[in-house]
Every structure is written in structure tokens, then in C-alpha cells.
């Protein structure tokens, strides 16, 4: 089983990396880019096949380690 986790900055938290990327894209002439947010993508390969149990465990991993609740939110996709 695979878990795909998206970790992104909460709205309201300044994203300097995103801003820098937006600036670079504008310099390159991509004026259609209104804004950029940058996040992390974490893919886990999991043993076992109980999807619901996995969801609980992965949620725990996210809350404890993979994201920082002060600045980040996350979403989980299992497949």
C-alpha cells in the first residue's frame, strides 16, 4: 500500500520559497502566474493491507512527525 502525504503551509504563514519561485517565474516572463505555494510530498510504502488501520497510523505519523502543526497542514491519500 502507498500513502501520499501532502504537507503545506497554513494559510497566513508567509511562504518565502513560494514567493521566490513566483518572482523567478515572473522574471522569465510567465506573467500568468498569480501566486505560488510550495509544499512537501511524502510517499510511504506500507506493508499490510488494512486501509482503515493504515489511515489511522499515517494520520498519527503526520501529526507527530511529518508535519508541524504550528505552521503546516497535511492531507493523506491512500492507494
Amino acid at each position, binding site marked *: 500500500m502507498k500513502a501520499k502525504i501532502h504537507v503545506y503551509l497554513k494559510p497566513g*504563514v*508567509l511562504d*518565502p*520559497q513560494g514567493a*521566490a519561485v513566483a518572482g523567478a517565474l515572473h522574471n522569465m516572463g510567465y506573467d500568468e502566474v498569480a501566486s505560488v505555494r510550495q509544499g512537501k510530498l511524502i510517499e510511504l510504502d506500507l506493508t499490510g493491507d488494512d486501509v482503515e488501520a493504515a489511515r489511522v497510523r499515517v494520520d498519527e505519523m503526520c501529526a507527530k*512527525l*511529518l508535519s*508541524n502543526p*504550528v*505552521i503546516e497542514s497535511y492531507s493523506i491519500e491512500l492507494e
Partner: protein
Amino acid sequence: MKSAVIVFPGSNCDRDAHDAIQGVTGTAPAMVWHQETALPEGTQFVMIPGGFSYGDYLRCGAMASHSAIMPAIIAHAATGAPILGVCNGFQILTECGLLPGALMRNAQLKFICEETPITVANTNTRFTSRYTPNAKLMIPIAHHDGNYFADTETLIRIENEGQVVFRYGANPNGSANDIAGLVNEQGNVLGMMPHPERAVDAKHGGTDGLALFESLLGSA
């Protein structure tokens, strides 16, 4: 004063911390490996040094804050004992919840190593009692992720409580309210990005960090 320096895989200011503490207190600190589950008997002061614990690959300090030694450090903090986290140590203290907020990538996205002017915003702590109020210090910084963030509510609270202990003179990294270092509510846990242990020797980076260790010694 009996002290301990915590060593994680990837710590790299552990020797600097050891030497600074030994120089000021006259006693070598115990070097405590992250897989230990208890601090040495009688430990008073604990320092979490700078470096790149676990490569800082996920978020700075995130993985270290889950290592075996952390529960002992959190329990030690609860007894009111002094704990100092510098640079990566500061990041670890915010990640494990002993200090509020988070340290994000520097606003200009680059690693910065420079001597930085900072001012002492609060001398009424056991880490800063030997400084004069508003003293201006030069202490080196060396980090990629020192941009202090906390939500507005938290910022107001820590400002009102006088928890901000050091402020940058010329904000090098985008930190909220120019915060370079802060203590917890009880005042016994200090996290700071500048490296006081690199400022205890005139040959190396000046001596403006000495009084921090002397304050601690005086308070023990």
C-alpha cells in the same frame, strides 16, 4: 554546576558547547548520546547544541525532538532546571513544544553566517542576569532556518510576558518581531539562534557570549 550536552547524530557544535561550558564553569559537561533515556545523576544545566540533527532533512529539529532522550529533557524542564538550545537546539525545543512558535527558512532562502548585533531584551532571566539592560552584543549566527514564526496571539502573549530575551539589531532572516531568542513561560528554557558558545574567546568570535554562561553559573 553539573551540566550535560546532548549529542544527536548530526550535532556539530557539541564540542564548542562542551568547551564553552567547561571554560566558564570549570567542570566538563557530560556528553549524552541521544539514545540514552535518562540524564546523568545530578545534572543541573542541559544544553542542546547546534548542528544538523538527522541531517535536518524533514524539518530542522523534527526528528531529534522524537529521540529517546527527549522525554528525560522535557521532564527535567518541568523541574525548573535551566535548559539552553542554540540554533538547531532552539529548533528542537520548538519542535518538541518546550518553546512556542517555529523556525522557518530564512527570508532570503540562504544560509547566513555572520557576526550579528543583538540586544538583550530581558535581563531578568537566569541566562541573562549578568548583562546590562539593552546591552548590545555581537554574536555569530550560522543557520538556514532561523526565521522565527508564531501566530499573532502567541506573539502578543510572549511579548507581554517578557519572554523575548534577545532581539536582532538588523534582522538577518525575517524573524517576527526581530526575535533572536526567547524563554518559556517559566523562564527556565531558553532557545536562541545566535551562538553564544562561539563568543567566549577573543581569538575566535569575541566574548559577548561569556556573560550568558556566567549568569547561569551564578544562578545555580
